[in-house]
């Protein structure tokens, strides 16, 4: 089984490096096929490992020693247990699908090979992040996915907006990563180890303050990667990257790494329920906050990005309330239907020549039947209609909030569920229903390649069945590691009222969205209203950041530049000028005349002799000189 572990981990790396070899050459189908094949190998290995884990085994290998200095011992160790295997399955499934899909999506791009190199490198980093058996390895993977995300957001680097978005994402993550690094340091400082096993064994003996500090700092790291408020602005801008990237990185895998971190560190967070409650509250806030922004946005991909943000908020609510397995389950279900949604959006973009405004589309269901079905079903799953995956995972989070008596959180999440249904179907109805507005703009939509649709179908199936088929098995498996908790509402009447009520509320929201947006009438009175403008401008937060941080920073930099010119540059130039001047004046020494050179040489000899004589004088009379100085 160790072999499967290594295949699962390193196959994407092999694919990436092979694709990188062709990075500078013309598009070759081989790189796409090979990278996809490697990913499939990784997927199969993960599947075999999953079967092993289901039988009750865990696999732990230490590939080699990495750092061994003093008391610090960090190996390149990898572990496959109930939690990591779940993440591995999610990552490999979605990434295999996305790889195959990308062969079609990136068909006309001249950087085809480079794309696959980056994409597979991302998967490798993600696998390191997930499988590492210590926090430092996780951090390496964490940074690795950050770099790959940067590369992929800025994949079309000739577009200024893309490079800007890439840098924004990278810098925001850097801020958060600093906090995370501090959290790791705190843990090492107090426990002397970075291995999860060692941390979990020793974490009970630490005092509350240290635990709280470590928990908060680690969570700030998670906030950056999972784009939680106030570090959320990068995720929407990250949509500048190619759509498969958005599906893989900014919906299914990388952004969920924060949730994974909290779940992975559950023994730590179990001891600090205050921080957990903070996490849950922030999650609920972000769920609502992002959903409201999604209501009015006019950019197809941004709407889905905000939806991702909102769903990440849900996951943090569950994780913060101690329902780690629920968070992980929603992570898995969400990965499937959100990736599907993004890939569908990618098809639409392809059909519409990269047009992103859904108000310019409409009535596409005739031209793009397959995509229409997939996106509708993915939206239904996202909205949480029975029996799709979202129902089982998202409603469970509502129940968790209810059972744990956090009624405010429950109300917020319930409202957000309605908003989610509304904006999802606003999008679907704008794109696929109503009049065929795209004709006005001269688009000629066409369905995507067949194999792209086939590649997407596993996600569709999973989005439908993941809930009712896997929930039981998953729960049995994962409670071996995570705290068990059934989270059932004991009162039968309340339970049914809640469940059916939620369903009805969501369906009502869907119908409202259909009615309102089928004809895509733009209500000018609403649009000019304060709330609409507030939401449309993302609560003015990007502008606020610009005014609050960017502009003062630019001013500061300008000032520093002047200081730099006056002090640092001037002194460096001064030193250089001194040497330049002496060189200019003394170059007459180098007149090429051997005789004068010999004279200079003798002068040097005399100088050396003088220094030697002085040195000898000092050494032989050291005592006398010391006495003289002492006196």
């Amino acid at each position, binding site marked *: 089984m160790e072999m499967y572990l290594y295949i699962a981990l390193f196959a994407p790396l092999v694919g990436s490096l092979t694709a990188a070899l062709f990075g500078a050459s013309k598009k070759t189908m081989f790189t796409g096929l090979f990278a996809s094949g490697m990913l499939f190998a990784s997927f199969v290995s993960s599947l075999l490992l999953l079967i092993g884990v289901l039988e009750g085994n865990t696999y732990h290998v230490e590939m080699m020693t990495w750092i061994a200095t003093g008391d610090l011992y960090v190996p390149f160790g990898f572990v496959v247990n109930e939690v990591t295997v779940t993440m591995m399955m999610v990552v490999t499934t979605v990434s295999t699908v996305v790889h195959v899909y990308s062969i079609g999506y990136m068909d006309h791009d001249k950087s085809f090979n480079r794309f696959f190199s980056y994409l597979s490198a991302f998967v490798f980093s993600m696998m390191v992040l997930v499988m590492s058996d210590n926090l430092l390895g996780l951090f390496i993977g964490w940074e690795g996915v950050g770099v790959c995300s940067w590369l992929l957001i800025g994949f079309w680097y000739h577009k200024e907006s893309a490079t800007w978005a890439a840098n924004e994402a990278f810098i925001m993550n850097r801020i958060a990563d600093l906090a995370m690094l501090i959290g790791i340091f705190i843990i090492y400082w107090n426990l002397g180890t970075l291995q999860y096993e060692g941390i979990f064994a020793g974490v009970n003996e630490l005092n509350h303050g240290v635990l709280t500090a470590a928990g908060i700092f680690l969570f700030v790291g998670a906030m950056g990667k999972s784009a939680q408020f106030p570090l959320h602005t990068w995720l929407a801008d990250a949509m500048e990257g190619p759509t498969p990237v958005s599906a893989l990185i900014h919906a299914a895998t990388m952004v969920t790494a924060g949730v994974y971190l909290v779940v992975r560190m559950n023994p730590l967070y179990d001891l600090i329920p205050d921080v957990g409650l903070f996490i849950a509250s922030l999650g609920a806030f972000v769920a609502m906050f992002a959903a409201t922004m999604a209501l009015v946005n006019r950019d197809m991909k941004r709407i889905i990005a905000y939806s991702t943000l909102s769903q990440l908020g849900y996951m943090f609510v569950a994780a913060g309330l101690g329902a780690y397995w629920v968070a992980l389950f929603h992570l898995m279900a969400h990965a499937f239907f959100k990736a599907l949604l993004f890939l569908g959006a990618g098809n639409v973009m392809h059909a519409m020549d990269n047009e992103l405004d859904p108000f310019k589309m409409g009535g596409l269901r005739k031209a793009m039947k397959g995509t229409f079905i997939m996106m509708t079903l993915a939206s239904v799953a996202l909205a949480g209609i029975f029996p799709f995956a979202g129902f089982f995972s998202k409603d469970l989070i509502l129940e968790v909030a209810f059972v744990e008596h956090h009624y405010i959180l429950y109300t917020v999440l319930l409202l957000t569920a309605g908003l989610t249904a509304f904006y999802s179907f606003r999008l679907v109805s704008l794109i696929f229903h109503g009049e065929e507005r795209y004709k006005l703009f001269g688009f000629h939509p066409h369905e995507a390649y067949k194999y792209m649709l086939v590649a997407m179908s596993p996600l569709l199936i999973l989005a439908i069945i993941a809930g009712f088929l896997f929930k039981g098995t998953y729960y049995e498996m994962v409670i071996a590691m995570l705290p068990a908790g059934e989270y059932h509402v004991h009162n039968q009447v309340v339970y049914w009222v809640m469940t059916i009520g939620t369903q009805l509320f969501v369906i009502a929201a869907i119908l409202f969205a259909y009615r309102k947006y089928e004809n895509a009438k733009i209500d000018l009175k609403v649009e000019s209203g304060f709330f609409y403008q507030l939401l449309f401008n993302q609560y003015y937060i990007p502008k606020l950041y610009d005014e609050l941080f960017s502009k003062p920073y630019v001013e500061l930099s300008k000032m520093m530049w002047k200081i730099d010119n006056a002090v640092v540059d001037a002194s460096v130039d001064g030193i250089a000028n001194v040497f330049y001047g002496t060189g200019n004046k003394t170059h007459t020494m180098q007149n090429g005349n051997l005789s004068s050179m010999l*004279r200079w040489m*003798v002068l040097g000899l*005399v100088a050396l*002799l003088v220094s030697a*004589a002085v040195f000898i004088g000092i050494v*032989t009379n050291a005592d006398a000189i010391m006495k003289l100085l002492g006196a």
Partner: protein
Amino acid sequence: MFEAIAFYLFAFLTIAMFWITVTTKHALYALTALAAGMIFISAFFFILGADFMGVIQIIVYSGAVMALYAFGMMFFDTTRELHEKNPSSTLVFLLGGMAALLVVIMVSAPIVSGSIEAAYPIIEGIGNTQAIGMVLFTKYLVPFEVAAVMLLVAMIAGIIMAGKKMDISYSEMSEEQIDEKLDAEVIA
């Protein structure tokens, strides 16, 4: 007493000879004075009991090296006086004097400890030449061979460099032929 007289006498002679060498305007005088100075130096070697070195000094320096210089000088026009633009003498003598003075100060200061252990002690009762031979052909065999190779290389190099165009003998040519040859060379 005898040793002191010999030392001062030869010291005076050596310094005088070398002084002539560096100051005279005639190359031939310089060569002669140098050869004489070399021989006087060998006297010090005899005084110091280094018989072998003394013999080598006379054979190699006064014999071979000086003969080489003498042959070399045949190529140059040495009969006329040397016209040199000598640089300012004060500076030259100042520098030379300074260097000498500093070294003398350092030498006269008792800095080297007296207890130096000889790596290859001079053994009483055995002749100097025999003793040198024993050390030279055991401990210093490799440097000795390397020096031999170096001398060979130098010899070949000297022959090749100095011997270029030696096949053309101007003395067997008529005046016109020499002029032609030189003109051709100037054009080339």
